[in-house]
């Protein structure tokens, strides 16, 4: 629901907001420029001295004004011709033209009324209101995503556009909210909805009738520092009934032109004071630094717009229409989806199709619409639950747990829960676990145990589908095909074989870079730019479900390299390991931004076993700046599956690799990477305390073993792997 409040105002107001924020950002520079350019009054200077200096220089002076930036302007008549200038308060002489800046005026008019008069002012105010709604709903979304306001600046993972969107907005939201609230106030003030018009004092009926008081002798002007002056208007020459009009930060009054006495005075009202403060906060006039900061924050809006649209399009594309959806009242199987970005709906659609083909009547709906009393014919409920942020319910599952807690589920209804998530997050499938726990607590019958799908893996989903089919007595084959990117044919250049002697035949396969079209280069599509650790999706012949392998090379290396172990009966690995130079295979690139070493000089601790060495070797090869890298490498036997054994000594010599620690499992004293880490516990703990980043790649068991070992090693330092993961300093790529 909050998401809808974020999305629709944004799309509708995008063009308007772009105009307002870009013009606002440019306008923010002017007060700062004026502040720098205009000569400032020395702190002790009084209005009496300043006015006297100006009157000496320009005897026909009619008005002296001081802008919030401190710029002093004088207007005078000299022999019937009006003149004006910016004044140097030290001399009283003009130093620059006081004519308004045409660009600033044009931009101001665009910014506040789009050159459309009052209608335009209202449109701009609508833009400001939309910005405010976006800021508020955005804060709610970010807070939900990072797990509460106290985690506001927590590092993020996930797709790049989403991260950019949140990174910019969590800094800029303060300025954008301030600018929009103040804009709304100013519009209300312009349309006289706020009683902030000052009371002018009544014009004095009785004056001394004398003229020509010496300005330097006027008491009130002597008491007023120039910093408090707003304007001083002089009486008409030859009109002895006229007076001086003085405006200061405190109020407005009239002074006798013969005696200099204050004839009438009224203070600034509270409303005026508030409106003026708001004007200053919005325009930066009188607060130039704040103005520039707000301008910079406004510049974030175009980027927010672009990334926001990308997120929206990605979410839409991911959600398929479900054809032939049975109504909730008639369906035997109820499939409920808890999805944030929409990708889980695709899995639901695949499940719906497969079950329907198997003769079942199936209803698919959002988890937030859970109403068991409508499920008259339901025999089973299947919950497909993604997780949002720190184990929170995703958008389409809001309120599910509350509903489930109070609902009465018909006895005999079987429930299955499948979690969708990303193992690189510390709270992997936490929401699904919470759901499964409550389902169990409600006493519902379990259809099949809780299972999970990591990073939308079609294999995980198919495996779960077989278990589901077995439980339902069906032959269920879930061939989920996410919308795949365009594939390309890659040609094998060379292969190196390892591991046959230890029953783990493995090949390092090197493919040529495919020729990229101009469009691909421009859009960064295909194999144009990639890093080690990104994924390559391989489509085996005769099967449309891709298998993902971690890349062991970057685009800069000029080749595409992967490490593939041949699995018994594995369709894809068998095909890949059978390739000979010159053969081709079909593949596409999938970015994996969560698994990158990042920039900086902090040490890297790379931990991998078996084919998991691939991306880690890629990081070492790319380490041209010789960042300290400690590699823990688990293998079966150094004579057989020591991948990259030729390169490792070279990399060490070049300084790309500081230290290599190997753990050998097929010897008289078997050792695994966990043991190697434990053996180096002191140094590892020290490196991590000093800010080292840990990257783990390999099998699931190895990764959990490594996490346990690191928990042991770090316990004395008061650190846990979960804390490091939350900081983004501990990332895993497991399979």
């Amino acid at each position, binding site marked *: 629901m909050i998401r809808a409040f974020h999305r629709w105002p944004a799309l509708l107001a995008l063009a308007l907001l772009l105009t307002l924020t870009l013009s606002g950002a440019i306008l923010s520079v002017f007060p700062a420029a004026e502040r720098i350019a205009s000569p400032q009054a020395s702190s002790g200077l009084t209005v009496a001295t300043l006015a006297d200096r100006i009157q000496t220089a320009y005897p026909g002076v009619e*008005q002296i004004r001081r802008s919030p930036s401190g710029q002093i302007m004088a207007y005078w008549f000299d022999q019937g011709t009006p003149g004006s200038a910016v004044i140097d308060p030290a001399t009283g002489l003009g130093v620059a033209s006081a004519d308004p800046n045409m660009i600033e005026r044009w931009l101001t008019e665009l910014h506040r009324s789009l050159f459309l008069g009052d209608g335009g002012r209202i449109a701009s105010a609508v833009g400001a209101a939309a910005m405010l709604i976006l800021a508020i709903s955005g804060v709610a979304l970010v807070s939900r995503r990072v797990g509460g306001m106290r985690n506001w600046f927590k590092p993020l993972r996930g797709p790049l556009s989403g991260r950019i969107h949140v990174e910019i907005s969590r800094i800029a939201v303060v300025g954008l909210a301030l600018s929009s609230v103040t804009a709304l106030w100013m519009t209300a003030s*312009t349309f006289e909805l706020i009683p902030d*018009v000052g009371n002018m004092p009544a014009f004095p009926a009785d004056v001394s009738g004398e003229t020509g008081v010496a300005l330097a002798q006027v008491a009130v002007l002597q008491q007023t520092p120039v910093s408090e002056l707003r304007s001083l208007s002089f009486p008409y020459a030859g009109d002895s009934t006229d007076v001086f009009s003085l405006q200061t930060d405190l109020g407005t009054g009239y002074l006798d032109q013969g005696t200099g006495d204050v004839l009438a005075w009224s203070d600034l009202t509270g409303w005026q004071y508030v409106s003026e403060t708001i004007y200053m906060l919005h325009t930066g006039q009188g607060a130039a630094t704040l103005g520039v900061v707000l301008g910079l924050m406004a510049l974030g809006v175009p980027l927010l717009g672009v990334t926001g649209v990308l997120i929206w399009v990605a979410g839409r594309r991911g959600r398929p229409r479900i054809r032939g959806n049975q109504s909730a009242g008639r369906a035997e199987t109820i499939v409920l989806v808890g999805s944030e970005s929409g990708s889980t709906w695709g899995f639901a659609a695949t499940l719906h199709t497969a079950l329907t083909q198997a003769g079942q009547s199936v209803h698919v709906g959002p988890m937030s619409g859970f109403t068991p009393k409508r499920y008259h014919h339901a025999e089973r409920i299947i919950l497909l639950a993604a997780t949002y942020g720190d184990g929170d319910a995703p958008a389409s599952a809001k309120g599910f747990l509350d509903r489930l807690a109070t609902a009465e589920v018909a006895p005999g209804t079987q429930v299955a829960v499948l979690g969708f998530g990303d193992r690189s997050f510390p709270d992997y499938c936490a929401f699904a676990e919470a759901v499964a726990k409550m389902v169990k607590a409600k006493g519902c019958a379990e259809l099949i145990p809780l299972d999970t799908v990591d990073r939308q893996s079609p294999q995980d989903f198919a495996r779960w589908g077989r278990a589901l089919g077995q439980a339902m007595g069906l032959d269920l084959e879930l061939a989920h095909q996410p919308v795949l990117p365009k594939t390309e044919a890659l040609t094998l250049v060379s292969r190196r074989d390892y591991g046959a002697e230890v029953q783990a035949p493995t090949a390092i396969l090197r493919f040529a870079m495919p020729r990229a079209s101009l469009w691909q280069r421009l859009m960064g599509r295909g194999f144009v730019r990639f890093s080690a650790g990104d994924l390559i999706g391989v489509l085996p012949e005769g099967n449309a479900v891709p298998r993902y392998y971690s890349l062991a090379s970057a685009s800069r290396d000029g080749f595409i390299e992967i490490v593939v172990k041949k699995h018994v009966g594995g369709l894809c690995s068998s095909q890949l390991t059978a390739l000979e130079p010159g053969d081709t295979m079909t593949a596409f690139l999938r970015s994996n931004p969560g698994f990158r070493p990042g920039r900086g000089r902090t040490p890297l601790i790379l931990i991998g076993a078996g084919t998991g060495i691939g991306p880690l070797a890629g990081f070492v090869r790319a380490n041209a700046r010789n960042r300290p890298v400690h590699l823990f490498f688990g293998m079966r036997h150094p004579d057989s599956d020591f991948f990259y054994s030729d390169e490792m000594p070279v990399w060490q010599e070049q300084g790309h690799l500081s230290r290599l620690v190997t753990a050998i499992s097929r010897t008289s004293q078997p050792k695994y990477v966990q043991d190697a880490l434990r053996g180096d516990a002191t140094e590892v703990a020290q490196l991590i305390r000093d800010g080292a980043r840990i990257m783990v790649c390999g099998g699931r068991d190895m990764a959990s073993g490594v996490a346990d070992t690191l928990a042991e090693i770090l316990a004395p330092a008061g650190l846990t792997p979960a804390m490091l993961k939350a900081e983004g300093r501990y990332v895993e790529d497991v399979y």
Partner: protein
Amino acid sequence: MKSLLASLALTTALTVPGLALARPVTMTVNLNNYGGPGAYLALYVTNSSGAYVGTLWMAGGRSRYYQHLSDWYRATGGSTSQINGITGASVGSGGQLQVTFELADTLFDAGYTVHIDAAVENMRESPNEVAVPLTTSGAGTTTRGRRYIAGFTYSM
């Protein structure tokens, strides 16, 4: 419509007995290219002793800015009852204001003076830009203003 309302307002102010003794007068104000946003202009009349008699026209719709038309504001206390129905849009830089009124014959050659106060946002306010005696012989003569008004003419 404009002229009718204008004549009514003046009638109440001047208590002219009947419209038969009135004549249509067109007033034209041309502004300089002063390079600012739209100018607020107040056209009003004073009598031979300099006392305020009534307002002819107010160019500019927001009463919060009327205090910057300082002579007019001083004379009227900013009372919007003085300009009910005789208010129009502000006049842009280099633009022209033209209004026609039914003015009582008794206003002419009797010491009455037309004044125009001008004010522009963020620029110097300019009360009494123009002060022209209302005479039958002065019709058609153009008067320069002090700062914003390039020329003011009334014609019968």
